[in-house]
């Protein structure tokens, strides 16, 4: 089991990070998710991401451990950035590797749903017109997305 979990301010190179996992020939399926900063119809210049770093690392570790408990995974990678992230840049990278695609897809989606609703990060929008940033509101969709994992299998989270 390869596990890389990191919170950082600098940009990441997704392909280098995945190559560094050193997947073996038991892996048949690799799923990656990259979350990118949208420009919101051209109005958004950047997102500023505030984190609670010590808790974020602990929480990401708990979510990764739960994913490993639920699915037979060969590798989990989670990198989440904080600080100023310009429109078009990547915010988060999740990768999961498994023998079969169903497990890799489910685990990646599970990790993202939990990161969205449980990892202590908050986004502030910086507009192109220079107006004061507003905090991005949490989405009910995200709460609904995470709820489906609770109903399907018991969780320690």
């Amino acid at each position, binding site marked *: 089991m390869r596990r890389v979990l990191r919170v950082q301010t600098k940009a990441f190179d997704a392909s280098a990070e995945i190559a560094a996992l050193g997947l073996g020939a038991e892996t048949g399926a690799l799923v990656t998710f990259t*979350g990118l900063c949208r420009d919101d119809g051209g109005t958004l210049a950047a997102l500023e991401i505030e984190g*609670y770093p010590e*808790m974020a690392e*602990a929480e990401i570790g708990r979510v990764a451990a739960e994913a490993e408990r639920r699915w037979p995974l060969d590798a989990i990678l989670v990198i989440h950035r904080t600080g100023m992230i310009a429109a078009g840049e990547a*915010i988060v990278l999740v990768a999961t590797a498994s023998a079969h695609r169903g497990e890799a897809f489910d685990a990646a989606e599970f990790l993202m749903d939990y990161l*969205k609703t*449980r*990892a202590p*990060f908050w986004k502030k929008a910086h507009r192109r017109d220079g107006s004061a940033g507003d905090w991005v509101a949490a989405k009910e969709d995200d709460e609904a997305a995470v709820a489906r994992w609770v109903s399907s299998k018991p969780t320690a989270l």
Partner: protein
Amino acid sequence: MKARYFAWVRERIGLAEEDIAPPASVKTIADLIAWQQRRGENYAAAFANAGAIRAALDRQHVKAGAPIAAASEVAFFPPMTGG
């Protein structure tokens, strides 16, 4: 105990962290939020809508009813919007 504040909770209070010493009658997160509401205008603004506040004790999510006695760090913040 140490209190930490994030996002608009931090902005409204005007502090990222502080040491707090609530009275012994403050036993749960809900009690602590009610106590914070009475500490001044900035705290009242930050904690006005208790339902919009999330809390962690020693870096783990907790519900409003969680007892605070054993914790050394409490954090208050809005619902998370990372990922």
